[in-house]
Each structure stands twice: as structure tokens, then as C-alpha cells.
């Protein structure tokens, strides 16, 4: 449904996209993960026909985004990061207007059905200017779904929403992604994990990883990190842990806690617990330290750079 080959985009002298290649199939929800300025929005804007690429090719729903832009635009639903709404229109008027532009046979009826999908039918006749952030986001989403497009592209659809609204939007995305292609960007790792079939990680205009959320996680988390706390003084605890075979990167906060890593296959936790209890420490907590998005980025971007260097040799 989406095929991207060696896509390049330059803004003046700055290269925003550096020859990225990926695809997305029907019925697949693909998460586009990356820090701000990584190139997510640029890629989405090219895929939706908003701007042409500097080089490379993108085929969406069977049409080239440059040569057959109008055909692509007919088949894509797009929610930009800044939700594009007219405050002087009511929700129903807005969707009806978009429905007319999309030549839907019965724009008003379709507009109402779509508002029902995003649970906004009760506010159909209210002016968009009076809506809360979450409601605005939902009207924007309704606009993207209005023509039941084959491909749906959502740029940070959950940003700025409260937790309840985030869950609601995620459910809508999951529901619509059952039989359509959804590409959505986020910088929240857990969100990508919850919704996506596949995750693309993009950084500085390059795709640094592409995999299922589970694989990605285990790739990065080939090591597990544990935080360990004791009651009272933790003096000498880090040295004691360092001596245990299988522990790595032991760091102490010099008060009451120590963090260490071990390979996912070799769980040293029982041994660590036993050793330090025997050494007279009062163990009160041992908890996993989840890898943050930053960790994953660092890990993956480092891999990529080292890979490039060694490849060049």
C-alpha cells in the first residue's frame, strides 16, 4: 500500500531525509518513531502529496505521489500534526465541507456517521472554536477517516491529550487499522508497542531500525537493567556485585541503591540476592529499569554509526 524507495528531501542545504526506504501493507499499522526533527513529518508530507521529494520515489495505494498526486490524495486520509480546523464552522459543517471536496455522494450523512465513530455526534452542531483539545483532535481524526481511505496517515495523533483521550484515540486507530494501512508517528515508545504491527525508527533522516515492537525491544534489551535497594548503608555493595559473574555496568548512587546489567539469557538476580543477603545487607527492593526511548535511540543510532564505519573499512 505504501512503498518508499530511496526518498530524499533537502531543505536548502539541510538534508531532512537521507535516502529512506520502507513499505507498509494493507491491514498493517506501522508506527513511525523518532525524536523531533528526525524527518517523520517530512516523510508524511511527501506521502500525502503536500510536498514533492528531492529525489527517490514513493508509491501510495498504487499511485506515484509526484506524478499522480491527485489520485494519491483521493485515497489517503491525513491528520497533520497541527490539527487543521476552521473555528468558525460547526463540526458537521466542517466535515460536510471536506466531504464535498472529496466528492462523497452524501456528505452530510457520512459526516454524521464519522462523528459517531469518534464519539462526537452529540456535539455535531457546536462550533469547533468552542472544542477542547481532545475534541479538536477527534474532529481532525474524523476528517482523515471521512472518505474511508485505503491509507491513513496520522502525524502525532495523541500529542497533548489527557490519558483517557489517548486511550480513546488509540482504540479508534486500532479499530480502523484492521483492514486499512495506517502509518502514524509518535515519540512515545509504549504507544508504538501497544498499537503497531511494525515500528520504523527514524533519526536524523535515516531509518535506523525496522521491526516488530517485540523484536525491537528484545534487540535493544539484549541486556536487562536492574535497580537494587538496601536498607541502611550501601557501602561496598557495588564492589560485591561486580564480583558476581554475569553482572555488568554496575553503578551506585553512593547512598542506598545500585544498578547493574546482565544478559537477558542469564538471569543473575537470584544469585545477586543471595550473595548480598549473605554479606549482611538488608535487601528491600529489586526492580527492572525499563529502557527509555532515549536509551533505544542511543543504542540504535550508535549501532548504525558503528555499522557504517565498519562497513566502510
Amino acid at each position, binding site marked *: 500500500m505504501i512503498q518508499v524507495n530511496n526518498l530524499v528531501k533537502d*531543505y536548502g542545504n539541510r538534508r531532512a531525509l537521507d535516502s529512506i526506504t520502507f513499505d507498509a501493507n494493507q491491514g498493517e499499522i506501522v508506527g513511525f518513531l523518532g525524536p523531533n526533527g528526525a524527518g517523520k513529518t517530512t516523510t508524511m*508530507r511527501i506521502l*500525502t*502529496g*503536500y*510536498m*514533492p521529494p528531492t529525489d527517490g520515489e514513493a508509491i501510495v495505494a498504487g499511485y506515484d505521489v509526484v506524478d499522480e498526486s*491527485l489520485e494519491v*490524495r*483521493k485515497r*489517503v486520509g*491525513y491528520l*497533520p500534526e*497541527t*490539527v*487543521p*480546523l*476552521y473555528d*468558525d*464552522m460547526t463540526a458537521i459543517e466542517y466535515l460536510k*465541507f*471536506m466531504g*464535498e*471536496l*472529496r*466528492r462523497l455522494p452524501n456528505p452530510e450523512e457520512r459526516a454524521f456517521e464519522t462523528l459517531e465513530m469518534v464519539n462526537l455526534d452529540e456535539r455535531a452542531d457546536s462550533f469547533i472554536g468552542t472544542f477542547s483539545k481532545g475534541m479538536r483532535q477527534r474532529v481532525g481524526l474524523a*476528517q482523515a477517516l471521512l472518505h474511508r481511505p485505503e491509507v491513513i496517515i496520522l502525524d502525532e495523533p495523541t500529542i497533548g491529550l489527557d490519558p483517557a483521550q489517548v486511550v480513546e484515540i488509540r482504540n479508534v486507530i486500532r479499530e480502523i487499522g484492521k483492514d486499512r494501512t495506517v502509518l502514524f508517528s509518535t515519540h512515545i515508545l509504549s504507544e508504538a508497542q501497544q498499537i503497531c504491527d511494525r515500528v520504523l525508527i527514524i533519526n536524523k533522516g535515516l531509518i535506523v531500525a525496522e521491526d516488530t515492537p517485540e523484536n525491537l525491544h528484545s534487540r535493544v534489551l539484549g541486556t536487562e537493567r536492574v535497580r537494587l535497594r538496601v536498607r541502611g548503608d550501601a557501602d561496598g555493595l557495588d564492589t560485591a556485585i561486580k564480583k558476581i559473574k554475569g553482572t555488568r555496568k554496575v553503578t551506585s548512587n553512593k547512598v542506598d541503591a545500585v544498578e547493574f546489567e546482565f544478559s537477558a539469557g542469564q538471569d543473575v538476580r537470584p544469585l545477586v540476592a543471595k550473595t548480598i543477603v549473605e554479606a549482611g545487607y538488608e535487601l528491600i527492593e529489586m526492580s527492572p529499569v525499563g529502557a527509555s526511548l532515549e536509551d533505544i535511540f542511543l543504542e540504535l543510532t550508535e549501532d548504525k554509526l558503528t555499522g557504517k564505519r565498519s562497513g566502510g573499512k
Partner: protein
Amino acid sequence: MRNIWTIAKREYNAYFNSPLAYVVMVLLFGVIGIIFALNLVSVTNSQFFSQPLDPTLVAGPLLFMMLFCTPALTMRLISEEARTGTLELLLTAPLRDWELVIGKWLGALLFMLTILAITLIFPIMINGMTNPGIDLLQTASSYLGMILVIAAFLGIGVGISAMFTNQFAAFFTTLGILVVMWFLIGAPASLLPVGSEVFSYLDMNSHFYSGFNQGNVNLTDIIYYVSVTALGLFTGNIAIDYRRWK
């Protein structure tokens, strides 16, 4: 065509939701009304009834006021869409750039045609008050001219609006261009020994006052205003295209 109409309809309705449009309406009707009343008083007080009421008296004040009202009506048309992000929505909808530009212009033109239709009340009143009535052909020609002048003004305004994200920048640029085209561009014609025809042809003002307003409908004048309108809209189309590429 359908897309143009959809955009025009939305824009026309948006004018009636905006206070600015009502300010423009009040201003135009207020000034024209006062001038009409003053004319009426002066004619009826005249002892000899020698000075007839001018059926085209709407044109002068209306077009003068339009120099200022046009930038106010067009400044936000595309620049506001760019500022709020709705331009991204329209440029990713199955809509050609020129359909968007023409739709915006048509919406503004329809709004002005509504105002122009209301001003017909003045010539109708003059017609009722005078014997044998007004010169209908001259009045029709004056109105046709006004429509073409306003269409050209709005064309320039829409083109300029597409170039900016800031409304005020669009306002002042449009105002500047209209003042130059209406008042100043013809001036070198009387000063220059050669090339004066070019400047007098470019003068927006003379095509109306020495043509349409006298009751003379010339193809040259029609072509002139249609060309200016097209040039404005074409500029708008290029400006939008530039936004996509930059």
C-alpha cells in the same frame, strides 16, 4: 468546477461569520449613503433644478473605498490558512492549486457582488425621482465596470495573500499595489516623451472612468481588467506552488 464552487461557498459563508466583513459593509453603505444624501439635498435645494442627479454616483466613493476594503477582505484568504495549518489540509485534499485560488477569489467576489447588488437601490431611487429617469445603459455599463474593477482588485489581493503567512503583510502589500495601480501608474504618461501609451494603458483608473462609467463598453477595457485578475490569480497559484517546493 465543483471544487471551485465548494471553496467559494465556504469562503462566502465565512465572510458572514466575520466582524470584518460587516465593518466593510457598514463603511461602504455609510459613505455611499451620506454622499447620496448630500447630493439629494444639494439638488433639491438648487433653485433651477438644472443639475441632474448622477446615476453613477455610487461608483466614485465605492471604488475609492474598495482600495482599502479589498486588502481587508482578501488579506486572510490564503495567509490565514497557512498560519493555522488548514492550508496543509487543502493541499492534501484532491483539489488542484488553481481551483483553490480561484475558489477563494470567487468567494470574495460573490461577497462583493452581494454588496454591489444592494447599492442598486441608489440608482433605482434616482430613477424614481427624476423625469424621464436615468440612463439605464450607462448605469448598467458603470456596474459592469465596477464588477470588473473589483474582480481585478480581489485577484491582486488573493495573489498577495498566497505569498504571506502574516495577514498584515498581505494587507499592506495589497494596499500599496492597488494605490499604485489606481492613482500613480498613469502619472508618468504625461511626463515621459516616449512610452506614455504603456503607462496610460496600465492605469486602472482611466479604463473605468473614461470607459465604463461614461457608458462605453470597450473590449480593450474588458481585456485589461480580465488580464489583471488573471495575473493576480496566477501569482497566487505560483506562490502556493512555491510553498510546496520550499
